[in-house]
């Protein structure tokens, strides 16, 4: 019985060490070479669910020289937006996922996490916003298409409007000035949708309109639904827009929640949400250019060759081949939006990307809950991220909104979807209109 007593002491010791000190403040968890602390997981995972509270007459905080207004409210979970050639804005609304609860933990965590999200029903539709007179107020808010299945990614090329539902990629015929789709969409390709633990299907299109890129998230945090559930998951598909033929373009990307093509180079970029339960400051979500045929680590390793011991069986060859992502954004920020900037955003913000950070739930001190700008130089991220839209959390720790998709409006504004307040914000550069 002595060994038994010694063994029982072990978990108690772990319990104590898990409540350890805060990491050193001089560590830097973002950029090309972030500090990666040792993995740690106490007996209970860290969780802080921010209690929702309305904006009332408050607004997000934006930099000097910009102003912000809510251009649409009472939406049904706005996620991603698309600015059409005539300045109209399309908003994809919905909530997906049908993952079964496999463990008692899933039941409990589901109840807790739901407290930090909107209780509105999934819209499953596209809403069109129009500012006909150009005064910055979008007087028309109308349903462009409905009966969709948790639409998320949006892309337009000439007369083709592509929408990534949680289970299929579809195409609408689009004519400039339309306020309503002329008919139901046609299918381009089925998308993997079994379980759909990470259900969002991010979408972008090559500059020539030939290929669509679809981000398909993993079916688990870290293979806890079994390796079989991860076939055709955690990757980016390249889909032929004409035929619907697809192939994996890059793999090992745990949850690529937003994709964008870099103007000029045509390179595909992604923001990716990394794995949880390895500690408050691990693993960083990241921004990266996506190399064709590249493998980015998930599930076997993170940020290059850092092996994740929770994955069995392991694969040394895959670990050795894992590409280090370009730019860490920090752990648990939940980057869900990505768009390249342009001169219309002013000199300071002309070259770089905007990133919408939905915000953490699995960390003691919440992070994210803002839109940042990552400056670029010579086509690569260079320098520290800059807070662009903040104020989504109140000083007493409640949450007013959670940013998702970000889209640069060529008229000199940034469109930000807020899926907690069910609002679309427009951050306008003063003097641009």
């Amino acid at each position, binding site marked *: 019985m002595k060994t038994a007593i010694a063994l029982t002491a072990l978990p108690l010791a772990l319990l104590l060490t898990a409540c350890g000190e805060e990491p050193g403040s001089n560590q830097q968890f973002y950029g090309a070479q972030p500090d990666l602390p040792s993995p740690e997981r106490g007996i209970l995972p860290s969780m802080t669910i921010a209690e929702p509270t309305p904006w009332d007459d408050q607004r997000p905080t934006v930099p000097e020289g910009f102003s912000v207004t809510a251009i649409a409210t009472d939406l049904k979970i706005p996620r991603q937006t698309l600015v059409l050639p005539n300045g109209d804005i399309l908003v994809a609304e919905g909530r997906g996922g049908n993952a079964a609860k496999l463990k008692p*933990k899933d039941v409990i965590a589901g109840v807790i996490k739901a407290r930090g999200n909107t209780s509105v029903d999934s819209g499953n539709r596209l809403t069109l916003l129009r500012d006909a007179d150009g005064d910055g107020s979008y007087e028309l808010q109308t349903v462009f298409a409905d009966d969709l299945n948790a639409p998320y990614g949006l892309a337009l090329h000439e007369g083709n409007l592509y929408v990534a539902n949680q289970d299929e990629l579809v195409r609408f015929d689009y004519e400039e000035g339309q306020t309503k789709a002329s008919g139901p969409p046609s299918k381009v390709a089925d998308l993997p949708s079994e379980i759909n633990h990470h259900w969002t299907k991010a979408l972008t299109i090559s500059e020539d309109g030939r290929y669509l890129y679809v981000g398909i998230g993993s079916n688990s945090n870290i293979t806890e639904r079994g390796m079989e559930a991860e076939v055709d998951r955690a990757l980016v598909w390249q889909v032929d827009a004409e035929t619907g033929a697809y192939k994996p373009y890059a793999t090992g990307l745990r949850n690529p929640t937003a994709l964008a093509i870099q103007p000029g180079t045509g390179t595909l970029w992604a923001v990716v949400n990394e794995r949880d339960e390895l500690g408050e400051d691990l693993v960083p979500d990241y921004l990266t250019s996506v190399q064709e045929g590249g493998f980015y680590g998930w599930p076997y390793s993170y940020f290059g060759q850092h092996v994740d*011991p929770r994955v069995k069986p392991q694969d040394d060859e895959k670990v050795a081949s894992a590409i280090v992502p370009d730019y860490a954004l920090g752990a648990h920020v939940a980057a869900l939006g990505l768009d390249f900037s342009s001169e219309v955003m002013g000199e300071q913000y002309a070259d770089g990307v905007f990133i919408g950070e939905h915000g953490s739930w699995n960390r003691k001190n919440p992070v994210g809950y803002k839109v940042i700008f990552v400056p670029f130089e010579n086509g690569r991220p260079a320098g520290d991220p800059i807070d662009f839209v903040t104020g989504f959390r109140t000083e007493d720790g409640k949450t007013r909104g959670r940013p998702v998709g970000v889209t640069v409006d060529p008229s000199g504004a940034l469109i930000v979807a807020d899926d907690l307040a069910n609002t679309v914000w427009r951050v306008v550069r003063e003097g641009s209109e």
Partner: protein
Amino acid sequence: MTTTTATSHVYPNVLSPLHATLLCGQVPLFLGALMADIAYYRSYQIQWSNFASWLIAGALVFAGLAMLFALVGLFRRRNPRPLTYFLLLLVTWVLGFINALEHAKDAWAVMPMGLALSVIVTLLAIAATWVGMAQPRTGDAR
């Protein structure tokens, strides 16, 4: 016939049927979790780990209710139950609960601590049941 006199001192400490069911029920549940853990340890098949999680949750319900009976039993005026019985159940439940949290970790993070705890908790559950079911033979005392 002397048998009629025996009724006065037979089984004074017998557990109520519900108490006995709860106490004995925890054993196969904890044991099942242990066996599922062993299967996961050997096969990497995640479903075994899911089974273990639910079996432990069920065992905690049984053990927790049995513990309440044991606690009340400590204060019975006639033939209070032994403190050892309650304490064994208490330790079983607390370590079982820690084991449940351990099993809430993702994939292989459960190992090896989850398996070790399952061994310990199963042994404790058997010990608690043994002590709880054992009846002092009061009739032979004199």
